């Protein structure tokens, strides 16, 4: 039960689509954009608003999904859309939701549940905008979904390494050279898990991949329906940044899941649920594919040696074998007991 002080507005009750044939044909993200061929993030935008429907306001932070989607006089957005600053997705969503709430409560705007979705890239969301997203997830009275589309680089500015770029990847800020083969030695942040662990007021935090489009849309619908501040993290293959044939986008999304590098899960009302192939992997009904299969299809890993790939595989094995919640929480299972020193 909510405390008296936390007044919330009702949300739209969006039921899950039962299969791809039940998904409506209406598009709210249409022609007019100029993303690369095979851009999975553009697909995420399209599915996101398709799932949300027409009574939705979308805010988008700077990045490919701003620059390539909204050219003056040729916007691809059918729903109201507004640009926000690179690190501002959390604040944009919060401010929009707060205004709707104030205006409706004070009788200055017709009362109606309106979805608010603020999206950000990995650079804008997981690096620069993390503190604003975190703050937004602590405000139980505002209905706002933050969707992080993760193409694993600062793509719009010409593919630079971000805190979400995988280990070893070649970006324009981490090119392999004669002396240093691996310039990017960081391991990708675990954003959804981190946010779920740290934001007890959020009723929905999950990961998605557009290769599983219906599941992805249904998670958007779930988050919007549950209300309050919610968060979805989407892994989006990016032909330009990952350097592969655009035809492979869908397949690479599946590979990321099947190799265990991108676990699909959600935390709904504080309950963790692995879903899709990830669930099968966790229950050992399916075998994790070697990460090599994922890496070799992408030019950004072309300089990796067999040893590098072994290291990569070992880190993924760790995610699954050592983490307290496999693929979700990077605290190891074998808790150490802090014994006082023997006197």
């Amino acid at each position, binding site marked *: 039960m909510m405390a008296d002080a936390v007044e919330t507005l009702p949300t739209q009750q969006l039921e899950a689509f039962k299969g791809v044939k039940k998904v409506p044909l209406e598009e709210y993200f249409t022609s007019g954009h100029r993303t690369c061929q095979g851009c999975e993030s553009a697909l995420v935008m399209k599915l996101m608003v398709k799932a949300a429907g*027409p*009574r*939705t*306001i979308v*805010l988008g932070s700077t990045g490919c999904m*701003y*620059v390539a989607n*909204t*050219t*003056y*006089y*040729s*916007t691809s*957005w*059918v*729903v*109201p*859309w*507004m*640009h*926000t*600053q690179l*690190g*501002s997705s*959390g*604040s*944009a*969503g*919060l*401010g*929009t939701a*707060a*205004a*709707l*709430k*104030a*205006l409706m*409560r*004070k009788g*200055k*705007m017709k009362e109606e549940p*309106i979805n608010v979705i603020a999206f950000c890239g990995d650079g804008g969301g997981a690096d620069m905008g993390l*503190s*604003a997203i*975190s*703050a937004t997830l602590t*405000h139980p009275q505002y209905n706002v979904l933050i969707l992080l589309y993760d193409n694993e680089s600062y793509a719009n500015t010409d593919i630079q390494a971000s805190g979400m770029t995988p280990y070893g990847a070649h970006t324009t800020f981490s090119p392999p050279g004669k002396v240093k083969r691996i310039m990017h030695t960081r391991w990708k942040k675990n954003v959804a898990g981190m946010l779920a662990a740290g934001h007890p007021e959020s009723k929905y935090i999950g990961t998605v991949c557009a290769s599983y489009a219906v599941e992805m849309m249904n998670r958007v619908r779930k988050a919007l329906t549950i209300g309050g501040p919610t968060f979805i993290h989407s892994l989006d293959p990016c032909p330009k940044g990952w350097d592969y044939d655009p035809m492979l986008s869908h397949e690479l999304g599946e590979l990321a899941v099947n190799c265990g590098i991108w676990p699909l899960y959600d935390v709904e009302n504080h309950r963790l649920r692995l879903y899709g192939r990830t669930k099968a992997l966790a229950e050992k009904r399916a075998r994790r594919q070697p990460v090599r299969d994922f890496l070799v299809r992408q030019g950004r890993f072309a300089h990796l040696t067999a040893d590098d790939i072994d290291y990569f595989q070992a880190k993924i094995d760790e995610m699954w074998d050592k983490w307290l919640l496999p693929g979700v929480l990077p605290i190891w299972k074998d808790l150490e007991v802090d014994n006082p020193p023997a006197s």
Partner: protein
Amino acid sequence: MAKVIEKAQQEKEALISGSEAIAVACKLADVDVITAYPIRPYDTVMQYVAKLVANGELDCEYIVAESEHSQFEIVKHASAVGARVFCGSSGVGWMYAFEALTVTPALRIPMVAMVGNRALDDPGAFGVEHNDALAVRDLGWQLVWVDSAQEALDTALIAYRVAEDRRVFLPCAIACDGAFLTHSQSMVKIPPQEWVNAFLPPYNRGDLQLHPDNPITIAPQVNEDWLMELRKHNDEAMKRSRDVVIPEAYRDFERIFNRSYGNPFFEEYQTADADVVLVGMGTLSMPVKVAIRQMRKEGKKVGFVRLRWFRPFPAEQLAKTLSRFGAIGVIDRDFSFGAPYVSGVVATEIRAALYPVDKRPPLLDFISGLGGREVTVPDVRRMSDMLFAARAGTPQPLTTWVGVRE
């Protein structure tokens, strides 16, 4: 709140600080969304706002943000949806919000903010300096300096009216000197709600409102194709603010509230017969006026012009007024290292304003009162002596730091 004394004509009087006066203005303006983040000295306004909200006197979404950047972004987006918003900061807090401060006028988003003027770090200093607010002077913010709690309250109402006028749609910052105004109490007339309602129409974004009934796209990429035209729009808006909307607002204010500010853009004090004139912004008006009264007893005719609106800058009016005197002394509570003649910001602007005028008196700049140091009566007397010398034809340094240890 201090004890309230009922007066005739429904107006109440209360002993309140500049910060509290602006909080009261937020209540009277029925602001919808307010965001707070702590930094001295502006944050006293948010402490008063929080009390008003807690006591049910102000009905708004009141959000404690996690940084000034978010603080200003939140209200920017709230305003885009049609909410009347209030925000504020001081010193490095204002600078932390700089990106948000940049895009807000560019997007034609009305917003009223209070800047509790404070020295910029480093090293830390709480006291007043005007460099924080002045940093946005080129971006499309309207900037107005006030020198009393009454003027702070009145100007906040005027600021909403001007900022939210569709002919303007630009944010407005009310600059209040830290401590001298933010924390000093004086008697303030608090107008009744009906007067405010008669003066301040509801905020209406019209076809610029972000709402599913009006599915527009705000701020698509323009590049060289359109940016220049959009900048020109903002330039026109700022000019309309100066030439039409600000004067209109002050006229209506005078009619409805029965209180006149004379020329909206600057106050003139004992200028009618003055031989030399001092110019400055904010609360340094107090020691300047005291010094002028002293000097007048000694037969030294000094006047004072207190500039209110720095943006839009009333160049022609000000140049016309200032060219009447034998010498002009600008007191800058700011610095601009490496600026022309190493002067402060206000002096540099006034020099530029005077260029097209035929009669250009000597103009001396005095950098003074930085970091909250007092501008003293002897300081003002020293400045005036230099002005008289300049008037008599004895060359004086163009810029002098006054009240600084050598």
